[in-house]
């Protein structure tokens, strides 16, 4: 992973001092609430329902054991002993005291961490594929480019007060595991016929209230032009994006209002002036950044020893992923155990996972946008031992890619924006689908829950998406099906469609069960996934079942019980 140089280190240290002074002035009353708000937000500090929430940056999801131990330490000392991994690969602390935040940041700076630009109307943490650098299907390693983008976007003076937040994601393989199509800028790294590295650039994707798939405005942008081209896009957005209405301020609205082609023409015209300018990424610059990345020293390994325990085999099937180096594998530690809020990890678990990463994966790990952790470089022969340890920590639920691997925002339990709670709904669904055989039979299914239209839980791109809505002060849930983040090569990202009227929290598990029943009846084979069936037969058969007037039999579970 990338190691800071003196400049990187100085930047985070100076930022700590600056934020300490800003906090001091706010507490002394010389900085107004509104002015401090803009400053604290761009440092990841929200004022939430119960307490402030601090969002700590984990640039493109890469984390070292040392950093994770520090996070554990901070969670114990300044919070309630746990943290929440978010869909932007960051870590959120839910209970810090505002007065302590400068001290927390100072602690983080000692391990090359910070909370810079994790919120606010600026360029946010860059996200990428959690298998970056190790995926067998990878064309270009996106990590290097993520770091170049991180350095460029950190305190970029021109783009500190954009109309709205700005999210960039990078993927380097055809299977888009970074959901680039639903980002303000999505970058697909690729190579042209002559082997040159470049990017397919899409703009104006996004979730939130008006979900949209991004528009490709350039099929191939040579890599050296990456920053000048992005400056052109951001400048057009900064100057002409809507500032009169918070809900119309994202770049997707500008792209839509202008039309994709007209927007592209504007960007190209702006870029004509910036191209080959000072922000051009020279070979030297690429080399400078590349040279600060450490790479795992892989061994030449023989085949793995296979375990035979069926639970191990189930885990191996779901949570172990291919690696480009023979004898190695990537392992997902599931933070989606039934009964635990999705994405939450206790300080003790953090310490233990830091140890696992040290012993099994070169002291590094990654945070996924699906709110799990990945040990990316595990010797296959160690899988069984790792599994046993992970199991002891409650981190070996074999559910990656399955229905209970739920993405969920913190929801109404914590967030002041939420209309409804997410976590209890996620837990109720996990409980309903706790039977592993049944879960495996249902097969691949992404279920995402957001507590409000802001869509932090990415409900629009879940195969099943659940959105919390407020009806006269009560929590209701709207269900969508057919969304997809485009993770399967060749299958484009898609937005879900609402099945019908919203339902109460208690009804949600039943609704999911009915959707699954329709799927199991209609699929032509086990190979046809839920999402494939939705795309083949449409929403209507699902809708008919969910809202059928006659009382529905409690489907699979009861039938299974009767049969037993």
């Amino acid at each position, binding site marked *: 992973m990338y190691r800071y140089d003196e400049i990187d280190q100085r930047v985070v240290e100076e930022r700590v001092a600056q934020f300490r002074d800003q906090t001091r002035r706010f507490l002394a009353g010389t900085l107004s609430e509104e002015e401090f708000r803009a400053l604290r937000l761009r440092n990841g500090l929200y004022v939430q329902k119960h307490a402030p929430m601090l969002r700590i940056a984990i640039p493109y999801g890469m984390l070292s054991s040392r950093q994770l131990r520090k996070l554990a330490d901070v969670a114990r000392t300044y919070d309630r002993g746990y943290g929440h991994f978010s869909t932007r690969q960051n870590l959120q602390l839910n209970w810090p005291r505002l007065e302590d935040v400068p001290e927390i940041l100072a602690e983080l700076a000692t391990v090359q961490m910070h909370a810079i630009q994790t919120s606010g109307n600026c360029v946010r943490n860059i996200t990428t594929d959690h298998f970056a650098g190790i995926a067998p299907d990878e064309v270009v390693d996106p990590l290097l480019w993520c770091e170049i983008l991180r350095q460029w976007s950190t305190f970029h003076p021109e783009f500190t*007060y954009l109309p709205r937040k700005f999210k960039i994601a990078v993927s380097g393989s055809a299977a888009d595991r970074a959901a680039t199509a639903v980002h303000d800028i999505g970058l697909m790294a690729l190579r042209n016929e002559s082997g040159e590295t470049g990017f397919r650039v899409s703009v104006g994707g996004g979730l939130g209230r008006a979900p949209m798939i991004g528009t490709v405005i350039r099929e191939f942008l040579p890599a050296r032009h990456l920053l000048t081209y992005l400056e052109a896009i951001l400048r057009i957005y900064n100057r002409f994006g809507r500032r009169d209405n918070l809900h119309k301020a994202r770049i997707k609205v500008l792209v839509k209002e202008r039309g994709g082609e007209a927007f592209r023409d504007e960007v190209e015209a702006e870029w004509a002036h910036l191209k080959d300018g000072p922000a051009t990424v020279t070979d030297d610059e690429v080399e400078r950044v590349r040279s600060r990345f450490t790479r795992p020293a892989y061994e030449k390994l023989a085949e793995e020893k296979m375990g035979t325990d069926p639970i191990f085999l189930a885990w191996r099937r779901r949570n172990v992923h291919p690696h480009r180096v023979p004898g190695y594998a990537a392992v997902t530690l599931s933070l989606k155990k039934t009964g635990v809020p999705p994405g939450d990890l206790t300080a003790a678990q953090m310490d233990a996972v830091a140890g696992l990463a040290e012993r099994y994966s070169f002291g590094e790990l990654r945070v996924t946008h699906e709110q799990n952790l990945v040990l990316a470089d595990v010797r296959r022969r160690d899988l069984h031992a790792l599994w046993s340890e992970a199991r002891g920590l409650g981190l070996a639920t074999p559910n990656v890619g399955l229905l209970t691997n739920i993405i969920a925002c913190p929801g109404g339990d914590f967030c002041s924006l939420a209309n409804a709670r997410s976590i209890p709904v996620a837990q109720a669904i996990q409980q309903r689908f706790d039977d592993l055989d049944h879960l495996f039979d249902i097969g691949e299914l992404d279920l995402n829950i957001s507590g409000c239209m802001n869509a932090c839980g990415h409900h629009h791109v879940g195969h099943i998406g659940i959105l919390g809505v407020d009806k006269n002060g009560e929590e209701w849930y709207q269900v969508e099906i057919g969304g997809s983040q485009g993770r399967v090569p060749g299958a484009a990202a898609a937005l879900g469609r609402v099945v019908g009227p919203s339902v109460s929290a208690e009804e949600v598990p039943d609704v999911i069960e009915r959707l699954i029943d329709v799927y199991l009846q209609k699929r032509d084979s086990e190979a046809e996934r839920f999402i494939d069936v939705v795309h083949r037969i449409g929403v209507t058969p699902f809708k008919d079942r969910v809202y059928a007037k006659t009382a529905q039999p409690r489907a699979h579970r009861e039938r299974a019980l009767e049969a037993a």
Partner: protein
Amino acid sequence: MQKLLSHGRIASEHWKRLEGGAARWLAVGEDGFVPDFPYEADLIVPVAVLKRRADELFSRQGSTGVLLEAEDDPRTIAAHLERLSLVAIRFAKFSDGRGYSIARLLRERYRYGGELRAVGDVLRDQLLFLKRCGFDSFELREDQDPAAALVAFNELAVTCHARAA
């Protein structure tokens, strides 16, 4: 107390705003003439006045500056930049970041080398970024402490960005 920072120190003001808005200075009176500009004053005028009466403005003894609003296109004053001694960009709200892009355009694309001033809701915590986009003078909002604000220029001495650029 002076609220102007220029080139890293507290400065005194010699510029005057043209009073009464653009319409007054473009309206033809009953005598068939538009009003005369003050001859000796260093004047900051709206874009519309500059565009319509540039030659008169520049033939005065006093210097001429222009005030851009965030929605103004810097291209429209490009032809006058060589003769302008000051370009001011107004920030109606500190969180409206359009002026940062306008500043870079003026400096980098149109090679403007004169004084570039931020006016309006100009606060200490934005100074550093404004400076990095090319502003070299700052008319602080009334409640700001200019001496304290000077410190802000040194808060982040280095940037990753400056190195990458």
